[in-house]
C-alpha cells in the first residue's frame, strides 16, 4: 500500500460520520437546554455559541463518509 493510501485510510478512520454527528447533535441539544434552562444565566449566555457550533459542525460532518 502506498504512503498516500495509508494516510488516506487513516484520515477516513478519524473522519467517520457516526461519532462526529453524535457529537454535533449533543452540542445542539445541550445548547437548546442551556438556552431555556431556568437555573444559570451564564449557561444561557453561552447557549447560542454552543448551538451555532453544533449546527455548523453538523452541516460539515454530515458530508463525512459513513
Amino acid at each position, binding site marked *: 500500500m502506498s504512503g498516500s493510501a495509508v494516510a488516506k485510510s487513516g484520515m477516513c478512520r478519524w473522519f467517520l460520520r457516526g461519532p462526529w*454527528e453524535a457529537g454535533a*447533535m449533543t452540542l*445542539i*441539544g445541550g*445548547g*437548546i437546554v442551556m*438556552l*431555556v*434552562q*431556568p437555573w444559570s*444565566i451564564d449557561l*444561557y*449566555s*453561552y*447557549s*447560542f455559541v454552543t*448551538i*451555532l457550533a*453544533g*449546527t455548523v459542525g*453538523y452541516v460539515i460532518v454530515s458530508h463525512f463518509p459513513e
Partner: protein
Amino acid sequence: MTTILQPDDTMIPGVSEPAKSRATRRVRGLSDRTIAWLFVAPTIALLLAINIFPLVWMIRLSFTSLNLSMSYLPLRFVGLDNFTDILTDEDVWFRLQTTAQFVIWSVALQVVIGYGLALLINRQFRGHSFWTTIILLPMMLSPAVVGNFWTLLLQPQIGPFNYLISMFTGVPPSSFSMTGQVSLAPWTIVLVDTWMWAPYVMLICLAGLRSIPDYIYEAAEVDRASAWRQFWSITLPMTVPFLMLAVLFRAIENFKMFDMVNLLTSGGPGSTTELVSITLKRAAFEKWRTGYSSALAIILFVTVFGAANIYVKALNKVKQR
C-alpha cells in the same frame, strides 16, 4: 456532407457524429438541460428574492445599531454587541423559559390526545367519517380566526366557557378570567393550541396506525397476546416514527408560535404569556430596535435549524430500525 436524420434519431451509416449532434440541436432548438433550467429559474429567482436576500440582509443588520425610529442616524457597525445584549438580558431569558414551558406542555398534550383520538378513529364504527371531519375542523381554521373566537368564548361576562366551568364547579362565571389571570393565562394558550393542533397529530398517528399490516395482529391473536400486549409490542413501536414526525413539526411550530397567542393574550397579563416571538415583534415594531431584533431573530433561527437537524436524524434512525 449532408446529414439526414431518421425519425428515431438513428444515424444513417457514413454520416459523422458531430454533424448529427449539430443537426439535432437545430431540430430541437434548446437542449433538455437548458429547458430544465428555464423552468426552474423563476422559482430560484423568487426564492432568492423573498427568502435568501432578506436572510442575508437581516444577518447584516444584526451587526448594526439600526433603530428605525431614528433612521436618519448613520448606520453604525457594532460587531457582536446586539448578540451580547440579548444573551445577557434576563428578560429575554425569562421569555425563552416561558416559550419552552409552552412548547413542552402543548406538544405533550397534543401527542397524548392526538394519539388517543387516532386509536379511536382507527376503529370502524357508525358515523366514522362524520366524526373524523368534526375532529379535523379546528386544524383547518386560520390561527387568527381561532384567536378571535376563543377570545369571545373565554370572555368572563358573556363567554360560554366560564358558564360551562361554573356548571361543573359552582364558581361564579364572572369571578375568573382565563386570559386575564396570571395563574390561568399560560394554561389558556396551551389549551387553545392543543384544541387546534391535536387533530393534526391525530392525522399523522392515523397514517401510522393504518400502515401496520393486519397479519401482525393476526399472528399476535394466534399467540394469544392480550390487547394491552399488542399495543405495547406492535402498535406503539410501529407508530413511533410517526409520533417523532408529529413532535418535530409541532415543537418547531410552537417555538415560533405568534399569531394565536398575540390575539388571545398579547403576551399578558403583564408578560406571563409573552413568548419569545412576541418579544421579537415588540423589539422590532414597537421599540423599532431593528439591529437588536435581527440578532434575536438569528438566534431563534439557528435554534430551530439545530433542533430540526436532531429530529430529522432521530426520525431516520427510527425508520431504519
